[in-house]
């Protein structure tokens, strides 16, 4: 039996999260248990026990770690999505998100080209004024999307205490796509026609046997995984302390 409710709460939280219970259900369960414990303690104190004794008895009445965890884990409807379908959470959803971000970035490039640079044969020319912000937003989205989605994967992985196998697949995929993506613009053959924006995914030219795009992919991977690694190191440090 844990010595205090704080210990019980921490152990229970870890146990439930690792079992795949969604964080919001864990949070609510722990909140209600704390409130229940306060009521039990007050009841025991009213019956003449000292504060310390009342807390101890109340904790015993609340239930042991095993029974409290088992009762929640058995309710399978409280499992999180990433525990039920990790491939969808860590691979499919990031893919869709990245595709969506690239679509928006390409639309910004295409529409900006049409609005700000109607006469040019490519949108990749020096720009000024409001066009800098317009194209800048698209560029920011394009370059940051794989990293931001990677951070999202890391956040979910950490919050759920999830094993890093599926998240690693997601991170590598984001890095590969982000690193090998290239945007192309071509003017329509029809005079006055609208230009086309397309994307390709290639390793690109290599310098000293290392593809530049592969280097880009490794950078994205490192940036995407970094917050998760920091969290893990912090957690390991706090556990040691």
């Amino acid at each position, binding site marked *: 039996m844990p010595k205090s409710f704080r210990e019980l709460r921490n152990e229970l939280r870890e146990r439930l999260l690792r079992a795949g219970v969604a964080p919001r*259900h864990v949070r609510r369960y722990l909140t209600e248990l704390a409130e229940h414990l306060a009521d039990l303690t007050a009841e025991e104190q009213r019956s003449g026990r000292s504060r310390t004794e009342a807390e101890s008895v109340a904790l015993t009445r609340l239930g042991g770690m095993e029974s409290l965890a088992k009762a929640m884990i058995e309710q399978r*409807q*409280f499992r999180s999505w990433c525990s039920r379908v990790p491939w969808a959470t860590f691979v499919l959803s990031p893919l869709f998100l990245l595709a969506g971000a690239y679509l928006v970035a390409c639309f910004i490039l295409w529409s900006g080209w049409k609005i700000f640079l109607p006469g040019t044969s490519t949108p990749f020319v020096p720009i000024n004024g409001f066009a800098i912000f317009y194209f800048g937003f698209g560029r920011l989205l394009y370059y940051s999307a794989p990293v931001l989605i990677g951070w999202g994967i890391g956040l979910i992985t950490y919050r759920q205490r999830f094993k890093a196998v599926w998240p690693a697949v997601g991170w590598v995929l984001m890095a590969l796509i982000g690193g090998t993506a290239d945007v192309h613009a071509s003017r329509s053959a029809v005079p006055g026609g609208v230009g086309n924006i397309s994307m390709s995914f290639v390793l690109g030219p290599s310098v000293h046997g290392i593809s530049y795009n592969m280097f880009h992919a490794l950078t994205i991977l490192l940036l995407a995984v970094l917050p998760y690694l920091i969290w893990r190191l912090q957690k390991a440090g706090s556990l040691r302390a």
Partner: protein
Amino acid sequence: MAPSMAARETNPNFMNGVPELLILRLLKHEEMYGYEIVQAIRARTDAVIAIGEGVVYPVLHALERDGALKSRRKTVNSRSRIYYSVTPAGARRLADLSENWTNLAAAIRKMLVGGQHAQVIS
């Protein structure tokens, strides 16, 4: 000193559906919070049925998720608590569960009485 509450035993491997039935019955006419529910079950069943204090919450949450209960946070005497009450779907579920358990209890009683009768005859 009165027997410690801590020494009281809960009913292990609780009969399936009983906590739901008791909770829905209790909440049919008034809203209650978790602590009240556990104490009310203990009191109204003369402590024959004792639900584990903390494990009542997963049952409450499951019932709420199924739409049988609804909850709201309410502050009473400067204490904030989550109160539960029965929904129309919960009332229907209570009626079904009550009927099932009444039939089951009647069948078991009949079986037990029949057993005693057979013993007397033999």
